[in-house]
């Protein structure tokens, strides 16, 4: 996994997002064990405290479970992952809709364009 960290935003939020994507895309399957904070921090070349903070955020969101003695694992609850996934999709779509509004499109027009594109892709 290649970590991409931009310089204008807090590092831990970027780590959180990228680990989320790894969970959604199955790099870390449901119920699987996460590497140690130390190993993950080294892999991303960041401070362990920063990685710790990113994982704490994911734990808060219910995607990661901390076991008292055996480290961390991904939740086994597919519903939690689904919820987080939808939330991320909603964020991206609302960003997209704002851009379309700036271009002067009505929401209906946007839907028509999307519809047509999807049909074309099927062909």
């Amino acid at each position, binding site marked *: 996994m290649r970590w991409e960290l931009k310089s204008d*935003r807090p*590092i*831990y939020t970027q780590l959180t997002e990228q680990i989320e994507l790894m969970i959604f895309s199955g790099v870390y399957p449901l119920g699987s064990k996460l590497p140690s904070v130390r190993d993950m921090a080294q892999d991303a070349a960041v*401070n362990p*405290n920063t990685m710790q*903070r990113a994982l704490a955020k994911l734990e808060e969101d219910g995607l990661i479970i901390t076991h008292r003695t055996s480290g961390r694992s991904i939740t086994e609850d597919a519903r939690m992952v689904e919820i987080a996934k939808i939330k991320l999709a909603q964020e991206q779509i609302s960003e997209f809709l704002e851009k379309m509004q700036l271009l002067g499109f009505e929401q209906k027009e946007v839907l028509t364009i999307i519809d047509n594109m999807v049909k074309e892709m099927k062909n």
Partner: protein
Amino acid sequence: MSTIFECKDLTKKFGSTVAVSAVNLKIERGQIIGLLGPNGSGKSTLIKLANELLTPTSGNILIDGKKPGIDTKKIVSYLPEKTYLNDWMRVYQIIELFSDFYDNFKPEKAYDMLKSLNINANDRLKTMSKGTKEKVQLILVMSREAELYLLDEPIGGVDPAARDYILQTILRNYNENATVIISTHLISDIENILDYVVFINQGKVVLTSSVDDIRDEKGKSVDVLFREVFKC
């Protein structure tokens, strides 16, 4: 968390030149701190004061609550800006010297790192390039299990690939209760591993902040902020 490094109204003058000026600073354990400032801002002087290589003109500097001396040198691992090792020595001889000198020096760690950087322990320092010498020195410093690492310009003379390895080395070898203070002006290279930064200019502390706070509040990297604060 307890305080590992503290300055109280610390001042150091060389004749009429004020190198460190009434600095008040408190650093907690378990962090990696960037001591950042332009050339001649007082970074090295501050670190030398912490190692008793210089004594304060006024004010105090405390390591783990104690004035720098024999007790603090046991828990501080220091990488000076210039090498002090004898050129004619072979790397393994220096490792033996360090093992004799420091209780908390782990030779196996040193040999491990030498191996991953392809440095031969039989080589004499004299025959090595500037960058390789710097690597050897950092390896020695990081092979101690210290409570405070004071690294004065650890990545100045090495190539970018080795720089990455050195940062990895720092990350791997410091334990959760240890503290690392890195002085440098190569900020973009190290800012991802820092918890906290201290900006210093003309002997004064001008800013202390966590790296994430800087990015959160100002929407810019530490490197960009540094260029703004110290614009010539």
